[in-house]
C-alpha cells in the first residue's frame, strides 16, 4: 500500500513536471517574449503600507519652470529654487515673494542670519531674501558640478559631484580645505559619485554629513576633514539603498534622524541617528515613475517638505496621528 502510494505520488509529480513543459512551450507567450535581461524594478517598488508613518497633508505647485532645491528657515518659510529664480512661501503654501536671476540654481540653504546660499552649476552665491547678491565665487575647477550647499553658521560646505569632493569655504568664499578625498591612512574611502546626486547637510552636533551615494553610505566629517563615522546598507529591500547611487538627497530631523530620498525606486524614508531604518514617509506609488532629484527639507515643526521635480510641486508630510491644525 505504502509502495503504491509512493509510486503514484512520484508519477503524479513526474506527469505534473511534463505538463509544465507542455504548458510553457505552447501556452506561455509571455515567458518566451519577456526580456530576460530587463532591469525590472516593479517588484521592488511594492512596499508594506504598515511601514508608512507619514501622511501627505498638503501640496502646491511651484511657480518656476524647473525646480531643484528646497529649504526652510526657522520661521518655517519655504524656499524653492530652480530655473532662474527663488520663490518664498509661507508655511501654509502662500507665495510671499520671489526674485529671479539668469542662472539655474541646483541647491539652496538658509544661513542663520536669514540669507540664502545658492549653488549654481559652477559657482556659489550668497543672496539676501530680496535677491541682492552679497557674495559670489567659483570653485577652482571647470569640471565642477555643484549639487549641495550647507552651513554650520561659521563655514560653508559645498558638494561638487564633478570633482567628487566637498569644499569648505569661509563666508567670503575663501577655500579653507577639501573634505572626503580618499586617504587610506585616515580611513577615508573616497566618494564614489556616478551621477550628479551628491548631497550634504549639518547634523545636530554641527558635524558634516555627506552622502557617498555610489557606496550607499552616509559619512560624517569634522570641519577639518577627519572622518567621524559612517553608516549605510546596500540592499534592494526597504531597509537599504540600491542602484548606482542612492540616496540622492537627505535632510535632518531635530533628533538627528535622517530623512532620505531615492531615485530608481522613488521613495522617502526615515532612518534613526544610528542608521537603522525607521519608517517610510512616502512609498514609490506616491511618485510618478522615473522621478529623480527629490529634494528634502525639514522645518521646525518636523514637517517634511518634499520637492517633487516631476510634478513641479512642494509636498508636505507630517507624522500620522498628528493634527496639523493644532500646530
Amino acid at each position, binding site marked *: 500500500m505504502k*509502495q503504491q502510494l*509512493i*509510486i503514484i505520488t*512520484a*508519477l503524479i*509529480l*513526474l506527469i*505534473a*513536471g*511534463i505538463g*509544465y*513543459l507542455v504548458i*510553457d*512551450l*505552447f501556452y506561455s*507567450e*509571455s515567458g*518566451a*517574449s*519577456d*526580456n530576460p535581461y*530587463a532591469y525590472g524594478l516593479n517588484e521592488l517598488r511594492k512596499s508594506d503600507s504598515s511601514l508608512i508613518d507619514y501622511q501627505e497633508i498638503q501640496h502646491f505647485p511651484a511657480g518656476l519652470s524647473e525646480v531643484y532645491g528646497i529649504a526652510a528657515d526657522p520661521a518655517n518659510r519655504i524656499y524653492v529654487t530652480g530655473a532662474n529664480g527663488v520663490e518664498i512661501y509661507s508655511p501654509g503654501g502662500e507665495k510671499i515673494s520671489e526674485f529671479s536671476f539668469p542662472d539655474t540654481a541646483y541647491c539652496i540653504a538658509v544661513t542663520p542670519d536669514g540669507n540664502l546660499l545658492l549653488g549654481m552649476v559652477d559657482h556659489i552665491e550668497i543672496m539676501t531674501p530680496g535677491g541682492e547678491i552679497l557674495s559670489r565665487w567659483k570653485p577652482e575647477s571647470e569640471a565642477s558640478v555643484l549639487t549641495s550647499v550647507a552651513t554650520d553658521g561659521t563655514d560653508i560646505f559645498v558638494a561638487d559631484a564633478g570633482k567628487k569632493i566637498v569644499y569648505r569655504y569661509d563666508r567670503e568664499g575663501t577655500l579653507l580645505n577639501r573634505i572626503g578625498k*580618499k586617504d*587610506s591612512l585616515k580611513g577615508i*574611502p*573616497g566618494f*564614489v559619485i*556616478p551621477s550628479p546626486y551628491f548631497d550634504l547637510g549639518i547634523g545636530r552636533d554641527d558635524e558634516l554629513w555627506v552622502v557617498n551615494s*555610489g*557606496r550607499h553610505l552616509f559619512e560624517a566629517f569634522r570641519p577639518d576633514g577627519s572622518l567621524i563615522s559612517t553608516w549605510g546598507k*546596500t540592499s534592494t529591500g526597504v531597509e537599504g539603498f540600491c542602484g*548606482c547611487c542612492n540616496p540622492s538627497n537627505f535632510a535632518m530631523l531635530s533628533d538627528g534622524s535622517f530623512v532620505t530620498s531615492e531615485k530608481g525606486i522613488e521613495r522617502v524614508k526615515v532612518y534613526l541617528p544610528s542608521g537603522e531604518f525607521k519608517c517610510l514617509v512616502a512609498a514609490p506609488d506616491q511618485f510618478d515613475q522615473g522621478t529623480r532629484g527629490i529634494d528634502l527639507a525639514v522645518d521646525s515643526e518636523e514637517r517634511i517638505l518634499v520637492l517633487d521635480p516631476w510634478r513641479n510641486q512642494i509636498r508636505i508630510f507630517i507624522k500620522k496621528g498628528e493634527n496639523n491644525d493644532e500646530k
Partner: protein
Amino acid sequence: MKKGIALVVLTILFAWQMVSSYAIQRFPKPEFESGYITPETLLPTPRAEILEVMDVAVLLLALSVVTWAVLKRRSRNLVFWISIFSLAYFGFYREGCVCSIGSIQNVTLAIFAGSYVIPWTVLVFFLSPLVYTLLFGRTFCAGVCPFGAFQDLVSWRPQKIGTRLNAVLGVIPYIYLGLAVLYAATATDFIICRYDPFIGIFRFDALFSMFIFGGILLLCGVFIARPYCRFLCPYGVLLNWISRFSKYHMTITPSICVECRLCEDSCPYESIEKPVTVKNPESRKMVVRKFILIMLLIPFFMLLGGWTGSQIHESLAKVNGKVRMADELLHPEKIQAEPESIEMTAFKASGKSVKELYNEASRILRQFYIGGWILGGFIGLTIGGLLAGRLITRYRTDFEPNRGTCYSCSRCVDYCPIKS
C-alpha cells in the same frame, strides 16, 4: 554503502558549484588600497580548441572504459565509479554542454539550414555514442551520460511501475524527439536545451521553474529509477533503436542461464525479459491475423497522427518567434496589456517591413504544416509499433536484457551466480 558514497559525491559537487557562485561581483566595485586595478570585464572567449579535443578524448575514453567494464570486467562497481567521473566532468565541470542529447538539434539544424555549420565536436558527441551502441549496446547510458549518472546516484529505493505504464510513458520520448527535430529543423528553438532539467543544477543558474523540474525528476528518481532517461530522453530513442541491433550486447550471465531467477527483480528499469518457452506455439491462422492487424494498425495510426499534426500546425508554429510576432501584429488587441516583447523591439529596430515578416511567417507556417504531418505520422508509427510489439510473441529460454531499453548498468550481473 553506495548510497553513502552518492551522498558524499553529490555534496562535493554541489559545494564546488556553490563556491564558484560566491565570485559574483557586487556594485560598486571595491577600490583596492594596494593599487590593484580591477581588470575590465571581458566577454568569455570560445573554448580553446585543445580543450575541445580533450572533451572528445575524454568522451571516447570514458565510452571505451565503461564498455570494457560492462562487457569484459562485468563490474557494476567500476561502472558506478566511471559514472561518477562522467557526472563530475561532463556535468559539473563542462556544465552539461556539449551533450549528446542536445546534439540531435545541432545535427537536425545542420541538415535543414544550409547556413549552419555544425562544430566537429558536436558531431562526434552525437555519433560516437551511436556507434558504440551499435557495437556494444547502451554503454553510453550506463556510465558516460551525466544525466543518467546523476539519476543513478539518487536511485535509492527503485520501485517497479509495471509494463503497461512503462509502455505508455515510454511514448513521451518519441513525441519529445519529434518536437525537438521539428523545432530545430525550422530553426525555431532548441527545446531540449530550453527544458534541460539538470543543466541548471550543474551550472547553479537556471529559471526557478527549471530548478523545480530538475528537483522533481531527482525526487521521482529516488523511487522510479532514471525517469528522464526512460520517459523523456529523446536521444534515448535513437539509442533504443540502434541498441536492438548491437553486435556485442551485455548479457546477464556470462555462460548458460541456470534460471535461478536471482536477477529477475534486480533491474530498476524493468528491462529484463523473462523466458517465454515454446509450450503453446500460435497457430498459422492466428499469426496471419496478427500480421494483417499490424499491417492495418500502423498505417491507420500514422495517417491519424499525420492528419492531427497537420491540423494543429498553427499551434505548433506559435513557438516560433517570427510567427508569434506576426500574430501579435495581426491581433494587437491580444497584447495590449503586455509590455512589448524583446523580439518585437528587435524587429522594429531592424527596419524590415511588416509585409516581409508576414511572408516569412507564412513560409514557416507551410514548413510546420508539412512538419505537422511528419511529426504526427512519426508519433502514429510509434504508437502503432508499440501496439504491434505487444501482439508479437517472442520466444526465449533465458533471462535476457531488453536490448532496446537496457542501459547496460550491470546491476543484474552482480546477481548472477555464474561468474565465468
